[in-house]
């Protein structure tokens, strides 16, 4: 089945130690998104890629970076994790960004829960 896969499902890192979260998709979608979801809060968009075009949200901290080496994979790099970065990180994809179109529909992965010690 076509899907969005996130590895690992659980990640523990130390304060200040760089960490990379991985997302892959078999949907061949053009757009990949990264969201941060803290406990009992809404998912918050960090950035998205449309193909190789990177779009950063204005309030995403510089500590968060992303790479998309090819259509299938997208990585979230946290350069120096702080305690406040502990959260669930969700990857999502959509076929496109066209308004009023099913291309806009997002498909979510299971998430990676990051713990910072």
């Amino acid at each position, binding site marked *: 089945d076509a899907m969005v896969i996130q590895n690992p499902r659980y990640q523990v890192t130390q304060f200040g130690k760089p960490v990379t979260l991985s997302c892959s998709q078999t949907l061949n979608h053009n757009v990949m*998104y990264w969201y941060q979801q803290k406990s009992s809060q*809404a*998912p918050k968009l960090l950035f998205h890629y449309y193909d190789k075009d990177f779009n950063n949200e204005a309030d995403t901290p510089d500590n968060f970076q992303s790479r998309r080496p090819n259509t299938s994979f997208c990585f979230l790099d946290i350069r120096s994790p702080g305690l406040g970065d502990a959260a669930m990180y969700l990857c999502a994809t959509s076929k496109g960004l066209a*308004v*009023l179109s*099913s291309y806009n*529909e997002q498909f*979510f992965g*299971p*998430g990676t829960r990051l713990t910072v010690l």
Partner: protein
Amino acid sequence: AQSVSQHNHHVILSEAASLELGCNYSYGGTVNLFWYVQYPGQHLQLLLKYFSGDPLVKGIKGFEAEFIKSKFSFNLRKPSVQWSDTAEYFCAVKPGSTNAGKSTFGDGTTLTVKP
């Protein structure tokens, strides 16, 4: 900036009761509207979506939502809930603008259905 407001943080119902979860958004232009469900320990799943056309949208598992443009609302309904509907529900908005990538989610409503 757009925002999404879900009025109820936690709703508790008995099985067979009717459900309505409120969602209001603030954005003046064209929008795409979504409801997602997140069952305990599982990932976000799309319940239903509105792009255009009939403002009454039917989704999976007996859920429906009505888009009322004049009220900037997209409330989720189900006539008779089941214990298995216990989950967190998120309303989301994607604008029809140059920033079409940006989804804004509401804070979510936790639904507990008592058997």
